[in-house]
């Protein structure tokens, strides 16, 4: 297993070109090309904002409540929605990645774990393409419309790459696990879609967790809760302390363990791929 992990490093050139290929192939032939990477999250954001701003009562908007959430809702939403989109698309794509590229596994000597990891990384690239939009909002409210009281804290922003790294490890672990199991159980992909919808709503992304009816002791069991809150605290909450960092670091450690476990499972199932896909 360790040898295989080391070999993976040797294949970074391949991973890199496959990610680039994925990105190039995705928008080839569409008029707006790469702009879709920006437009997609923007459209998604508009839909959610319209629905929760105007059609439904926004949770946590009571100005007299100390737990209430200040600031523009769209930005808050974006902080959680953008990483969530990365997470779900990475999992959905990687689950089918081995079957989709079955030809490669059967015919070319090739470390199969490259495929789910490429899915995770190319969806991460889309996540990065969405960041400028978020940054644009943040800068707008910070400097042009200070009444909205968003205050960026530079020390907190330094945590942002850490949050992304934790999410990357966590997502990769799940991607390895799902892709190897999907080879044997084809319907995982279908179940996964529904499961992710449920997961989305029990995670404080469209609402602020302090206003959620779900007790904190329950939320703590939800790994993505910690990621979402970390993003929200780092980018949006005007407090100058990043209160959730202990949870984030614990989750980082847990993700590494989970990754190793997932890699072990993947390694065990590896020999069956060429025959089962």
């Amino acid at each position, binding site marked *: 297993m360790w040898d295989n992990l080391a070999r993976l490093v040797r294949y970074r050139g*391949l991973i890199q070109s*496959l990610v680039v290929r994925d990105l190039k*192939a995705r928008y080839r032939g569409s008029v707006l090309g790469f702009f879709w990477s920006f437009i997609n999250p923007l459209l998604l954001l508009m839909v959610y904002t319209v629905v929760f701003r105007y059609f439904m009562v926004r949770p946590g908007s009571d100005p007299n409540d100390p737990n209430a959430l200040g600031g523009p809702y769209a930005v808050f939403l974006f902080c959680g929605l953008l990483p969530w989109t990365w997470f779900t698309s990475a999992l959905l794509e990687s689950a089918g990645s081995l079957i989709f590229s079955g030809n490669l596994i*059967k*015919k*070319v000597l090739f470390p199969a774990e490259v495929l789910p990891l490429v899915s995770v990384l190319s969806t991460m690239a889309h996540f990065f393409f969405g960041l400028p939009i978020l940054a644009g909002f943040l800068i707008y409210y910070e400097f042009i419309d200070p009444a909205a009281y968003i205050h960026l804290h530079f020390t907190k922003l330094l945590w942002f790459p850490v949050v992304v790294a934790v999410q990357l490890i966590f997502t990769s672990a799940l991607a390895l696990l799902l892709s190897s199991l999907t080879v044997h*159980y084809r*319907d995982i992909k279908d*179940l996964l879609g529904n499961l992710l919808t449920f997961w989305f709503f029990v995670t404080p992304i469209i609402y602020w967790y302090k206003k959620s009816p779900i007790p904190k002791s329950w939320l703590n069991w939800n790994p993505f809760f910690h990621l979402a809150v970390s993003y929200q605290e780092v980018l949006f909450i005007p407090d100058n302390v990043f209160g959730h960092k202990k949870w984030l670091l614990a989750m980082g450690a847990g993700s590494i363990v989970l990754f190793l476990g997932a890699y072990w499972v993947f390694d065990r199932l590896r020999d069956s791929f*060429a025959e089962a896909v």
Partner: protein
Amino acid sequence: MTAPSKQIAIELSQVTKVYQRYNTKHFATLKSALLQRSILRDLQPNETFLALNDVSFKVAKGSTFGVVGRNGSGKSTALKLVAGITKPTSGTVAVDGRISALIELGAGFHPEISGRENVFINGIMLGLTKREIQNRFDDIVEFAELSEFIDAPVKTYSSGMYMRLGFAVAINVDPDILLVDEVLAVGDEGFTHKCLDKFGEFKRRGKTVLLVTHSLAMVERFCDEAVWLDSGRKKAEGDPKRVIGAYIGDVNKQEATFLAASDAKAQKTVSTAPAPAKPAEAAPKPADPTAPPADMFQASEGRWGSRLIEITSVTFLDQSGQPRQLFQTGEGLTLRLNVKAPSPVRDFVFGVGIFNAEGVCVYGTNTSIEEYQSDSLSGDAVVELAVDALELVEGTYKVDVAVHSEDGAPYDYHRLLHTIRMKSPVKDIGVYRPKHRWTFSPTVRFKDNRPQRG
């Protein structure tokens, strides 16, 4: 320095590969597995298939090694084991040198992106670095004859272009060991020649080639050694001519058994059908095997006639009198009909017609054409037609036999019920091979590497 020929590039020792087939339920789903609490059970294979059984062979460095065998004999499995794509269930596979496998050309090409980008990604997959690909890029494109289209998306390529590009990338990996699986049918004649030249170049540069193919001529021409696999077992190994000889002999034997079985089946279905009682009913059927129906493809096997004289059996005999269905072109053949007339008959004609697979009547004759005038026949009798040398080109032929009256009313007519197969080392075309020889004036010269045919 040690002699390089003593070095081993590939060594399989006592390799067994068992493919695990899971039960049919396994195809199904996680849902059913959860419902039936059978996840663990389902992950256990319940059916196994022995693809390779205790196979050992060594390939010396710098040699070209052929693997022959029927479909499903384990050839491709052996190649995948050498390539490292699958692992042996038991035994060891040792490989010394960089491998490039021409197992499936262009596996991993992405249809949406250009040929240029695909060359890079495919090359990296096959183990090259970006710089190495950059250096070889022009060679690859030139070899694939695709310089005009290299920036078009691969989805616009024809299948030939696709394969050529895949071949060009794989062969430019510059491996120490090249694994080739039936991939030379990738282009037109010109491209095939280029591929063969490339193989020749590989050989000259002392590279090792492992070739899996059905083209025995290629094995004979290129390989230094060969192995014959049959149902996962090694049947023969060594000199390619000897291995191929053994293989062809076995294929012929199997084919003969198969022909006999299919004829027996046709005859059985026909004889269970009731014979038409009235000759009038049979009248529209051709009464003479020399007159084939207008469209042979629509002709179905059958047997009809009044059975005043019955053909009880049809046998093909070789020169030594042994029954056979497989003959070499130019061999002698005797067609023996056992017939039976329950009551004496005074008016009869025996006829024979030979048809090739396209339904062309190759030859037909009967006793009336050859001016035998029937006098009497009663009880059991034997009719033999001896051909001294059957000069038909390779292929499968149907032999119709019949006995009928002078005016054409059938007694017993066998249509498409009997098959012979002609074999020939020379792949000439047409139907008939007249005895012939070439002579040349001294100014016409040929290379003297023409195989000696017995």
